[in-house]
């Protein structure tokens, strides 16, 4: 026994290494275990407690710049007042969008982004709403531009969002106006790729990409991006479609969590 003890002590760096390596590998395999999820949700709650004042300070610092920008914008708007009549067309279009929003009856919970992950590549973000606000796991998260991701962990006051840059994030999409469906995943920068698209589908650059509504997470017709390229794969019955994503994660500061879709009820 004493020999074993001495052997462990004298090789403690190797023993510790193998032990912690095994634990790490084990953790990788039990990612979705309830206990792990619970610990992680408590961790983000605790962590966001420190982030909220920081975010408040950041927003205060940003207020001065924002104020300057708004003054500048206000001046420009006054000068451009005469042009407003010509913008009636745009106004009508916006009104259509608003009507769509009313029709879709999505219940949206606004949220501030507290942090965009800390790993070398951003794969998640923490937002300041949680179960107390009605947010639960696997709810769609969108910005005013389009889909951002989905909630994967929910604490009481904060949640972790798996954003589209995570390699394990997939979303079922529909290409408009054709209506062809496929599976979208991020490939780098602000670009994504749609796979499993029928080879005979008529898709053009500039076509809009929206959510298909096939999943239980994302309601249909949420904007995702715009088609930037179409590639036929030789020897396969599908084509690849490149998409420029609508939401720019580098600038995102506010998001909405889609709580429910009245169409589904």
């Amino acid at each position, binding site marked *: 026994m004493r020999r074993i003890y001495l052997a462990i002590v004298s090789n403690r760096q190797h023993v*510790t290494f193998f032990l912690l390596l095994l634990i790490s590998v084990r*953790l990788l395999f039990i*990612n979705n275990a309830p206990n792990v999820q619970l610990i992680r949700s408590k961790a983000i709650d605790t962590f966001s407690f420190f982030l909220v004042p920081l975010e408040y300070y950041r927003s205060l610092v940003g207020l001065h710049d924002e104020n300057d920008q708004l003054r500048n914008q206000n001046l420009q708007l006054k000068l451009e007042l005469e042009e407003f009549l010509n913008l009636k067309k745009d106004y009508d279009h916006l009104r259509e969008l608003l009507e769509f929003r009313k029709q879709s009856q999505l219940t949206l919970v606004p949220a501030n982004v507290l*942090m965009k992950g*800390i*790993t070398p590549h951003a794969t998640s973000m923490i937002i300041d709403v949680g179960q107390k606000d009605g947010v639960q796991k696997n709810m769609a998260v969108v910005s005013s531009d389009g889909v951002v991701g989905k909630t994967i962990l929910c604490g009481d006051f904060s949640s972790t969002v798996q954003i589209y840059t995570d390699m394990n994030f997939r979303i079922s999409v529909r290409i408009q106006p054709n209506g062809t469906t496929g599976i979208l995943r991020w490939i780098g920068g602000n670009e994504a790729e749609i796979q499993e698209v029928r080879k005979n589908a008529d898709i053009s650059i500039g076509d809009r990409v929206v959510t298909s509504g096939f999943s239980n997470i994302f309601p249909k017709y949420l904007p995702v991006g715009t088609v930037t390229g179409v590639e036929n794969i030789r020897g396969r019955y599908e084509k690849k479609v490149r998409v420029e994503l609508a939401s720019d994660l580098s600038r995102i500061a506010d998001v909405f969590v889609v709580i429910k879709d009245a169409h589904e009820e």
Partner: protein
Amino acid sequence: MKNNQLILITLGVLALQFLIGPWLTIRGVRPDFFLILIVYIGVSNGSFFAVIVGFLCGLIIDGIGVGSYFGLSSLIYVLTGYLSGFLKGKYQRFIPATFTIIWIGIVLLSFFIYSFFRFQYLWDTDFLQFLNIWILTSFYTLSLMGILQFVRPLR
């Protein structure tokens, strides 16, 4: 480094990663200050401390900052700490170039494992893009380590 110093520096790096990391993000890639810390701890304090600090740092990062692959950061940092620990007290034995190449190799290996897990599909479908991501991510952190050599050389 003493234990108190270790804890303080680790907390400092944690703050650095949270506060400065987002500002240094270029095209979605940010430097990994924790990896730098663990290489330094490994070289100055040996494998034992580096492995423990690496595991704990990895848990913190994964606990609050990843969408998937919880445990990956711990695994990478534990490995990095273990390997860099072999460089403890070896600076005098190796010529500086060899010593430098070894720690650069350790950092490259760490990022290779990271990229392999995170970008598995690129490994199969677009290997050049995979290499691009791996090299770009590694190079960013290595550049900072290079700058750090003028302030506090690894030895």
